[in-house]
């Protein structure tokens, strides 16, 4: 018995040490775009060959602009076949360091364009996605390109795409004291073909916001100096007045079910700004806050249970969270500076905000309880952060310094991912401000 006892003790002390696997922690890596090779989209006629070129360009631009990918130069490709019906020679793609390979073809059959794609993981040497899509006419090629981009993005990153979306914004022109502001819309990539004006510039328009689950926007328009809140259905072009609100009115925003809007306006008698919730079906209005301080910029959490807003009730503007019925108000921002424009992420885990401190504007993120605050970008003037539908990117607008003669002060829309590593300007035909991102089309 004693023998077994000693043997057990020996095993306990010596065996694990001699056979223990080595433990290594990897805490760094390359934060750089993943190389993807995109072959030609092979066509069977002149029409389809040209369409294939357009598709390839759209997909390549989308993936590159996401900051997560870069397209390997096609001059380096060793294999140049249509790889939809063929197994790629993965070694040829490994040599040029492509981690993924996308191949596709396009045919015109039965009065519709039909596209097939296959996505391969080159290093693993296997196919990871195969999709077929069709469109009735070539006018929808751009959307088809965005759809394919979403499929590729979703498979590789594991989260929803954002390419088949639009951005509504305020287009600005003229000197600073006589700005003409029009409501405009474009694809998320800012392609020149996609730009459209939605208002004629006669009245001042401000703060457009998309409904989270349909193609409807709400915005403010000043008609004869009276602020009005509108709802604009982009599918059928119907514009509807929600109401006239005397006094200062700010930033209406939809609830997650798109059935209500939350906004702030000042009572003309008391001149005190509070937050109100309007039911779009019954047009009834409920006041949510009641405080001598100014309460503005409300934004719903994606589950509709909470609202984050901005208030100076503590003496200077800070961020607060309350229940959607106005109860249980808690301050969440703790840092120095003037906080504003809070927007709840569609993922529900973070709040984006602006902060003015040390003479600079910052766009930052914090957890919904106010912890882990971090700055994503800072500059002379940054405003209106808005989330992409997948909660991975932000758009905002940047304003340059203005001169005494009224020149300068140009505004432009920018795009950045939440790590702050990838920032780029979205091209617009004129100055652009106050962007809002649509849900997926």
């Amino acid at each position, binding site marked *: 018995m004693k023998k077994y006892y000693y043997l057990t003790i020996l095993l306990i002390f010596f065996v694990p040490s*001699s056979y223990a*696997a*080595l*433990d*290594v*922690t*990897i*805490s*760094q*890596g*390359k*934060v*750089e775009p*993943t190389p993807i090779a995109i072959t030609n989209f092979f066509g069977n006629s002149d029409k389809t060959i040209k369409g294939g070129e357009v598709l390839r360009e759209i997909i390549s631009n989308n993936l590159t602009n996401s900051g*997560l990918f870069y397209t390997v130069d096609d001059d380096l490709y060793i294999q140049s076949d249509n790889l*939809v*019906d*063929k*197994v790629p*020679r*993965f*070694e040829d793609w*490994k*040599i040029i*360091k492509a*981690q993924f390979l996308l191949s596709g073809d396009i045919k015109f*059959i039965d009065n519709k364009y*039909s596209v*097939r794609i*296959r996505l391969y*993981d080159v*290093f*693993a*040497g*296997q*196919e990871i996605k*195969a*999709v*077929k*899509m*069709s469109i009735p006419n070539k006018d929808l090629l751009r959307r088809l390109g965005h759809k394919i981009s979403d499929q590729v993005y979703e498979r*590789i*990153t*594991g*989260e929803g795409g954002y390419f088949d979306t639009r951005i509504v914004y305020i287009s600005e022109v003229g000197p600073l004291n006589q700005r003409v502001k029009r409501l405009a819309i474009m694809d998320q990539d800012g392609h020149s073909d996609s730009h459209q004006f939605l208002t004629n510039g006669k009245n001042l328009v401000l703060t457009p916001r998309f409904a989270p689950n349909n193609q409807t926007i709400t915005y403010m328009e000043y008609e004869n100096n009276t602020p009005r809140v509108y709802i604009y259905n982009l599918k059928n072009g119907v514009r509807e007045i929600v109401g006239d609100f005397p006094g200062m009115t700010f930033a209406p925003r939809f609830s997650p079910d798109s059935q209500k809007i939350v906004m702030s306006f000042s009572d003309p008698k008391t001149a005190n700004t509070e937050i109100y919730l309007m039911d779009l079906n019954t047009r009834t209005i409920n006041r949510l806050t009641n405080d001598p301080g100014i309460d503005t910029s409300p934004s719903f959490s994606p589950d509709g249970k909470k609202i984050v807003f901005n208030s100076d009730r503590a003496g200077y503007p800070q961020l607060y969270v309350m229940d959607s019925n106005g109860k249980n108000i808690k301050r969440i921002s703790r840092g120095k500076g003037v906080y504003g424009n809070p927007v709840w992420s569609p*993922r529900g*885990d973070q709040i984006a905000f602006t902060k003015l401190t040390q003479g600079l504007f910052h766009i*930052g993120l914090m957890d919904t309880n106010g912890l*882990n*605050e*971090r*700055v994503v970008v800072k500059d002379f003037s940054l405003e209106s952060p808005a989330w992409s539908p997948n*909660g*991975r*990117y932000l758009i905002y607008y940047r304003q340059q310094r203005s001169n005494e003669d009224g020149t300068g002060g140009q505004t432009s829309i920018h795009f950045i*991912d*939440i*790590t702050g*590593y990838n920032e780029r300007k979205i091209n617009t035909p004129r100055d652009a401000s106050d962007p809002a991102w649509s849900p997926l089309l």
Partner: protein
Amino acid sequence: MYIQNIFNPLHQIKSYLEDLLYNKRDKTFTLISVLVHILFLIPMISFTFNENQITDVPLILPVEMFIVEEKTAAPEFEQEVNEIIPDMIEEVQEMEEELVEEEVVEEVEQIEAKEEILATESIEEENDFVIDQKVKPEEIIEQKPEEVKNDFEIKLKNKPEPKEIVEEPEVEIVLKTKPKKKTFNVSKVLKDIEQESEDFKKEQETTEDKQSDVFTDEVGEKMTISELEMLKQQLYSCYTVPAGAKEFQDMKVQVKIIVNPDRTVKEAIIKNTAKMTSDPFFRTAGEAALRAFNHPNCSVLMLPEDKYDEWNEINFTFDFSWMFDKV
């Protein structure tokens, strides 16, 4: 009663505390003053008593420090690895290229045969927007190079056999040896000094040997910090961080790899298998980790060849909480 109370120390303390409770400031200041004085006095007294002990030490210490630094085998080993590894990679790559060239002809023939079959499998038969049909995995393409026999070995210079080290007390003996107080005699004192210096030299030599044994023994059997660091640096260059992914800061992907003696990765397995199927974000992070081991730059891992027992199986944890540090 009153007089008794005056001379009773307990009563004195009690009344003093009562005074404090009623915020009598002058007494509070007195108390603080006494406490501060005590605080200063304690360290002064302790320094005074410790003085003798400190003066005994410096004879031995500087000599030991010098010897350890000079004799450790670790720096020499690092240099060797740095010289050998680049050559090794080149040689392995050359051999791989040769092998690939040889197999290409056969492979092309087989692929062409497969292509014809696949071309006949029409995707058009399927419904719009969905293609379930997948290209069959190509078995031939997995080109695992034959085991590369290296013409070289990494050897440690003067690698001694591990010895048991039990003689730690001897070091203490050196520290404790003090000349005993004797009657003053010049010739005896000189002899004592000579004898002491000889003893001291012997002691130094034995200590030196033991120290070098200790260090070379560890370097020979276990992965050193610099070797581990080299492996990490190699993988950093092969791993692309899926930055900005949801809950990425909380994801810790664990990958177990089994390594061939030629330092190529035989098998890489994600340990958290359940999450790979249930959580798409985790799957992304996991796939990114696996791609690191398939990356051409990491096909041959930078590992010391003579320590195969140490690295034949490695558990990697990919942890990126650093990306989300507060700004």
